[in-house]
């Protein structure tokens, strides 16, 4: 579990399980006679509103949520980290500007931003969600890369690389960013986890993808039927919790230097 690949194990197992089950079950098939049926052998998670099979709904929704989270977090990392690293290498006005911009974007109520943009499209899809979340997802990565580069820019190995004539993008990609991957990898997981929850929250309040295949809409059904079918709510809440936890842990996989650091003695 402590190894790099082990961190992705929960998400891998979850995705594999869902990938096997999802094609066998249809989340859009409704059997009204089974509405809000408790868990049974043919329907292990029970049934929700209008008799939708919750296992089908949860497996499909989980795969889509994880894919959305992975895309947005990767976009955030790929855009944000270079911005922060370049700003810190250039120093001066650019560094201060990026610092302040990150402050503003990070404290921005992203939920409101999502509401504003989603209200402009007739049928929100996950592509729209991905765009909206990417608008703010880069900021924490830029902030962390900036802080890391501030420390690294005066480190001896960077100075040595410069003395050897390494410049520009090569210095950034081969020397600075790999050494910053530790914190960036943690942030990658945290961002992905937050996206899973945000997507569910938007669907919960009725702003999610119109197909209704979302962990948030399971929770929404569950809250509406709390008094007579509490299992729906439990399935919704637990699936969101498990997905976000698995995704958070999986972020560590991109920490390319973790083996290296584990091998070097402490203090180096």
């Amino acid at each position, binding site marked *: 579990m402590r190894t790099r690949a082990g961190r992705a194990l929960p998400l891998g197992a979850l995705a594999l399980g869902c990938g096997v089950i999802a094609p066998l079950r249809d989340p859009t098939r409704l059997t009204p006679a089974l509405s809000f049926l408790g868990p049974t052998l043919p329907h292990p998670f029970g049934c929700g509103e209008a008799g939708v099979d919750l296992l089908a709904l949860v497996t499909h929704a989980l795969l889509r949520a994880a894919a959305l989270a992975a895309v947005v977090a990767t976009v955030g990392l790929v855009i944000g980290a270079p911005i922060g690293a370049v700003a810190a290498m250039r120093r001066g006005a650019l560094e201060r500007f990026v610092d302040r911009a990150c402050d503003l974007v990070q404290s921005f*109520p992203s939920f409101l931003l999502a509401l504003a943009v989603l209200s402009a499209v007739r049928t929100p899809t996950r592509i729209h969600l991905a765009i909206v979340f990417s608008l703010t997802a880069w900021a924490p990565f830029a902030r962390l890369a900036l802080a890391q580069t501030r420390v690294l820019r005066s480190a001896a190995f960077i100075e040595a690389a410069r003395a050897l004539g390494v410049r520009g993008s090569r210095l950034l990609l081969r020397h600075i960013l790999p050494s910053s991957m530790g914190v960036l990898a943690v942030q990658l997981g945290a961002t992905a986890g937050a996206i899973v929850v945000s997507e569910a929250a938007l669907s919960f309040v009725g702003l999610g993808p119109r197909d209704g295949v979302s962990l948030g809409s399971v929770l929404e059904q569950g809250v509406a039927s709390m008094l007579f079918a509490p299992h729906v709510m439990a399935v919704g809440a637990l699936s969101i*919790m498990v997905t976000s936890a698995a995704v958070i842990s999986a972020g560590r996989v991109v920490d390319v230097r973790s083996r290296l650091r584990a091998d070097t003695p402490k203090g180096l």
Partner: protein
Amino acid sequence: MKKFAARVVARTIEAATCVLAMASLVFFALRVLPGDAARLLLGDQASARELDALRAQLGLDLPMSVQYGHFLRGLVTLDLGPSLRHPNVPSMTLVREALPATTALAATSVGLAAIIGTLAAVLASGPFLGARRVWVERGAVAIASMPLLTFAPLVTYALAVKLRIAPLPGDPDAGVGGLLFASSLLALPLAAQIARVGRAALADVERAQFLVAARARGASQKRTWLVHALPPSLGPILAVIASQLGALLGGAVVLERLFERPGLGTLILEAYAARDMPVLEGAIIAAGVLFVIVQAAAAAVHAAIDPRVRA
């Protein structure tokens, strides 16, 4: 003092820019993005004449620059035109009616979170609980890592449906109890964050000379921690509150939906469902203004209690 005034001016400009940027974003998102607002409102069956009439009524047939000018003027005069659902009601009146409920919810949550979080931080750092104090921090970590979206419905089920000690969601007679229950749910994640950061901030001062001096002068443990150690640690705590406000607003929308409470979030969702653009713009901007004001207030409070910030 001159420097202080300059800082106030700078902060005000920054806050105004923030609001303007968000308002403009809302404006352009609703107009530039694909999706004709008139068609969104009237549906696919609308005739061309109906569409044109509505566009004229909304000013959507004017050039974009003129529309933007009108919008900015409306923003300054707090008049974004009548609601589309209720043509006789100015949209800002609807927003003003919804504001107190959300403000009460958010303010009560911040207040509760500040008290619970700070006390937990002191309990986790001070000698009051002995070896058991690690559990305070472990609890804070556990709560902070659980999404509000998942634990709020579960706690509500346990307390309102099973134990019947909290009001049920949507209960019109919930009153103060309902407000307190909803805001304590909203306060929990914030309190956990405050406890963690406050614990770290207290760890920085816990070996400071002035605490030893206070103890030597005969101050009790309680007095030393609450009166001497806490004030210099308030900066990070306020910073956490300010940085979590965006999440708090999002959480407020979710909780208003969960408890079927009236408020800004409910208004936004209703306006969204009905494509009531003036109300939607007004509500989102109002939420943004609320957010900016509270953030500026947090900075001002920080400056007022910590002379190191003013210097």
